[in-house]
């Protein structure tokens, strides 16, 4: 039971094959009660497969998954009553309003005392309560999806890519809702391919790539353990800057077409580079020195390229 082990989810040697394709390759991990757990990985890494096996929609090829102390392949009906799920690419009935949709799902769970108004407030949809689903924007739909996942007051909430396809503002609004869930003490299982999202929300991040979990820890520990360098960013730098830094033995890369990023071992290296640039009279708008973020951790671990804040698996490394 949860109470005995302290784990809400226990995954042991889980494998899922689709024909010849091994989508999930012998993974094991645990999720503690009350934590926000993020499964981070690029498209096709096996996130949805993993999360849907845990919430009983798919069956594993081998391995065991225990959720709330129950085997997911055997206790489906008991489990679904105690979890809430926002599936990837969530959709609802076009012509049904926000309030009616929540009432509908509440009835499916035979909940007689669901606080519909409270849920609408929780996801900030008060203005849209009587709007039909088809008239909601992507961000509002996702927020409705989260509210639906909460109609049965679940102990564990699964959110499969809750912010994919949303603009930065809508994404931020969803994050606020998710932080609210954490405060309510729910165990949250999140999948995402946004580093920023995992870093901001998660207590534990598991990085999944090609069906395997390649690292798992708190965001801070992951960064500390996998990297021992700093990142220097020169904003809107001249074209010749990249050459100058390269001749000093560093490996600068162009980011966003105008910024230059360089890994340095020590803060002294920053000093050296800046003096060299000053000597050459090279121009840059500003600079930034910081510890690496999850993005760089991911790059280091997988050899993947990154692009606008989310990762894409490189063809062949």
């Amino acid at each position, binding site marked *: 039971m949860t109470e005995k082990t302290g784990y809400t989810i226990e995954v042991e040697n889980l494998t899922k094959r*689709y024909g010849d394709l091994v989508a999930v390759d012998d993974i094991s991990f645990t999720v503690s009660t009350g934590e926000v757990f993020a499964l981070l990985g690029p498209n096709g890494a096996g996130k949805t497969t993993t999360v849907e096996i845990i919430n*009983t929609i798919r069956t594993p090829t081998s391995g065991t998954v225990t959720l709330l102390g129950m085997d997911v392949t055997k206790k489906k009906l008991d489990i679904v009553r105690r979890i809430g799920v926002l599936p990837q690419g969530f959709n609802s009935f076009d012509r049904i309003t926000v309030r009616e949709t929540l009432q509908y*799902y509440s*009835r499916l769970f035979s909940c007689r005392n669901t606080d519909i108004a409270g849920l609408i407030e929780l996801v900030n949809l008060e203005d849209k309560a009587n709007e039909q689903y088809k008239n909601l924007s992507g961000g509002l739909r996702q927020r409705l999806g989260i509210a*639906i996942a909460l109609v049965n007051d679940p102990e564990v909430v699964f959110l499969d890519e809750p912010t994919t396809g949303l603009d930065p503002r809508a994404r931020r609004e969803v994050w606020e809702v998710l932080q609210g869930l954490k405060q309510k003490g729910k165990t949250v299982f999140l999948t995402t391919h946004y580093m920023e999202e995992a870093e901001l929300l998660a207590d534990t991040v598991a990085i999944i790539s090609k069906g395997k979990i390649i690292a798992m820890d708190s965001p801070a520990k992951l960064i500390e353990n996998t990297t021992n360098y700093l990142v220097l960013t020169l904003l809107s730098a001249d074209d010749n800057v990249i050459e100058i830094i390269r001749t000093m033995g560093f490996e600068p890369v162009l980011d966003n077409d105008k910024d230059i990023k360089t890994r340095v071992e020590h803060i002294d290296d920053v000093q050296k580079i800046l003096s060299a640039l000053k000597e050459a009279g090279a121009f840059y708008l500003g600079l930034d020195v910081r510890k690496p973020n999850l993005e760089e951790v991911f790059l280091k671990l997988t050899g993947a390229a990154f692009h606008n804040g989310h990762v894409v698996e490189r063809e062949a490394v």
Partner: protein
Amino acid sequence: MNPRVVGANLFVKLLGVYREKTTMFFTLAFPIILILVFGTIFMSQDNAGFHLCVQDLDQTKSSIDSVKELEVNGKFKITRVDPAVSAIQYIKVNKVNLVLVIPKGFEKSLLRRKFFSDYKSSVTITYVYDPSSSSVPTKMEILNGVLAGINQEMTSIPPFLKSAATSILTRKYRFIEYFIPGIIAMSVMTLSLFGTVNLNTELRQKGIIRKLCTTPITHTDWILSDILYQSTIAVVSTITMLLVSYAVYDVKLHLDAWLLAFILLEVFAFVGIGMILTRFVKEAQSAAAAANAISFPMMFLSGSFFPIELMPEFLQKFAKTLPLYYVNEGLRAAMIFEDNQAALHDAAIIGVFAAVVFILGVIATRWEEGQ
């Protein structure tokens, strides 16, 4: 089974279709359009008398009266041909196929026969006709009958052989009345089959089915709500069809519990087929195509539009293997012939079929992916 869950699903589906005004309109309008189109064709056929050209060479009171008699009692639409023209020429010029010629001296002969009992007195009515026309023999047959009747009357000896036509129907029914039960059966089939296939593939593609997998709803509750939903649509559509055919064509059919029974059994059968299709045909478009492939031949071969007796023997045998045939037969037995025995027989067949297909449909329904 959980009535609250079934009710919630039924409510959401009905509300959805109610708010989707265009879908709702076409759902109800399609069978109505069929009824109006076919009704207009049948009614004009029912009323159409034969067209007949008559050339009266006698131009006496008796001959004119006889022509009127043909018009009124023989139900012919008479065109009077000018006695001055040649009948043969008239046929060629006006492209008509038959002219009946009353000879000169018609009245004289008639009076001699009537008042002087001169049995040798007779007249020869001539049919001038175009033998290449297919409706001429029928016309001549009818005319012969009329003429025989007149001869009979004049001899005033009662005939030895009489014939009496007794229809098996208590009331005279028009073709449109045979047609309506067929249209009802066809519409309920299409609504249930396409309704189930479209709804379920749409919900699957939108991922709603996947979401439902993470709720405690059971297949039984889901399918039951589907049945109730499709039944509601079928009943509403049937009522609309009956009202329209009554309002426009004065169609009065016998309405009793059989009608409801057949509709419900048919809904079960075709929702079942729909569920089997949704299981095995994943793409919405190919599912609709498969539904078409099933319903289209059934529509034409099972006697919805015309009696299967008009089809070749082997097709008639084939028709009797189609579920829709038994719904058509059953509905006609109940609504036209008021034959409970026959209705029961058809209901039993469609009932067994519905049960088998429905159970297969329930078994076939899978929500989980990647089994």
